[in-house]
């Protein structure tokens, strides 16, 4: 089945026609003049504070940029959920579910991150803003749960900035030398852009504040040969890790780059790839504890930025059911999607009806060939450790 585009009269398959017609009415970039004006405003703001001494160091101008950005940044508008927030409402639903559905041979445990605000996509950022929205969700948790993060994030402003402000912070991170290769992909410019971002951009942004953002790659077993650091490989560097997607490419006499591989994380022949990822998420939220009592627990863990090609979401928890006499674990990820309306999620959680459709995702939904996660470790890096964080590395889990 095909249809005619009413704008350009091009015949296209029915599945593509809607996005094609919409593309006629979308600007690829926000007005470049606005962007230029903003850069000028930033420049002027930093000039006001800079010393008259022309030999003043670049670090001084960098701190001036930070100071002006702190002044210029805008708080993000979002729908604030009552009743103690979404996580509190989710906890209530999971506890009710436990009482209702408890079977004699079933043991259910849910682990949740602490407070997270849901940031939904708006008309302005539809189709490109999911990465930024997930950064905002991650930051909402950090600001509410981690004192050290509150002090350093966004110049201690204690609020989650809007997308244009986040874009400026990311540019500043690149200028400081965080993720140089990633910055090159964007020509070191992201302000006013609608280009997609991923975990590496989130990591660069958070790391520029000294936060220990970590990336985990989930890739299939058949791509083992693409990695230099596979255990047992004759040329495997023992503990070296490199950029998150810098794969070893087999070429004549070519050398490549590898990454740290978690050889214990999975046994693909034993469990499905969905279960590998689920198990990793469970271990993350349970802090690798072997026994966790049944029920619903709020952990001290932050949410996970969850990326696949084309979209990203935020994992705020995981549910495990041990079923039958063999106690086979069955997992559900508890996910907040920027594409969903916050109010709709809130109503579903309050009414305890239809909330599973918004938040629960089973192993069968994990159909992509590759996923990435980002989480933030405790503590603030400085000195040599901060310098090391400038190179975005990752942990590889066989998937």
């Amino acid at each position, binding site marked *: 089945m095909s249809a005619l585009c009413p704008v350009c009269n091009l015949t296209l398959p029915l599945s*593509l026609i809607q996005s094609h017609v919409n593309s006629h009415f979308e600007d690829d970039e926000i007005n470049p003049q606005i962007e230029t004006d903003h850069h000028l405003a930033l420049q002027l703001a930093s000039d006001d504070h800079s010393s008259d001494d022309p030999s003043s160091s670049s670090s001084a101008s960098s701190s001036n940029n930070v100071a002006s950005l702190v002044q210029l940044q805008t708080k993000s508008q979002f729908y604030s959920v009552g009743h103690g927030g979404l996580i509190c409402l989710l906890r209530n639903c999971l506890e009710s579910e436990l009482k209702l559905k408890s079977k004699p041979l079933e043991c259910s445990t849910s682990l949740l991150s602490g407070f997270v605000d849901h940031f939904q996509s708006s008309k302005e950022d539809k189709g490109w803003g999911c990465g930024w929205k997930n950064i905002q969700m991650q930051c909402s948790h950090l600001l509410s749960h981690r004192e050290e993060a509150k002090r350093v994030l966004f110049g201690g402003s204690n609020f989650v900035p809007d997308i244009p402000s986040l874009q400026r912070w990311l540019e500043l991170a690149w200028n400081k030398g965080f993720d140089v290769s990633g910055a090159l992909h964007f020509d070191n410019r992201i302000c006013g852009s609608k280009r997609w971002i991923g975990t590496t951009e989130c990591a660069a942004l958070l790391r520029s504040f000294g936060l220990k953002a970590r990336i985990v790659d989930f890739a299939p077993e058949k791509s083992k040969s693409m990695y230099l650091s596979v255990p047992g490989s004759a040329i495997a560097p023992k503990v070296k890790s490199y950029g998150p997607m810098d*794969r070893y490419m087999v070429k004549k006499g070519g050398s490549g780059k590898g990454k740290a591989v978690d050889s214990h994380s999975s046994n693909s022949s034993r469990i499905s790839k969905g279960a590998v990822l689920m198990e990793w998420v469970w271990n993350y939220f349970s802090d690798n504890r072997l026994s966790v009592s049944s029920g619903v627990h709020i952990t001290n863990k932050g949410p996970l930025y969850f990326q696949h090609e084309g979209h990203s979401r935020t994992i705020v928890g995981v549910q495990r059911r041990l079923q039958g006499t063999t106690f086979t674990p069955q997992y559900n990820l508890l996910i907040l999607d920027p594409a969903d309306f916050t109010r709709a999620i809130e109503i579903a959680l309050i009414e305890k009806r239809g909330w599973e459709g918004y938040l629960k995702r089973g192993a069968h939904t994990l159909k992509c060939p590759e996923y990435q996660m980002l989480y933030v470790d405790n503590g603030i890096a400085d000195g040599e450790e901060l310098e090391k964080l400038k190179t975005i590395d990752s942990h590889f889990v066989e998937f």
Partner: protein
Amino acid sequence: MQVFIIDEDGKKYCVEVEKTTTIADMKTKIYDATGMENAYQYLEHRGKIVLEVHGGTTMDDYKIKACDIFHMSDRMRGG
């Protein structure tokens, strides 16, 4: 027609395609030229990510013309 692929290191590759060539087929040609496996090729064309749609999206569907440039990243991104 020929299209050009530029990787993260700035290396340029030339690939021969037709208007009816699917994105999946083009990725196989890119693999032959670069050694980068299909699953890890993230292609950007005029600032937009080129996605494989089930049923086989073609060059024509994305309005790709001769001598067009694709930027190939080995990083996953989303929107």
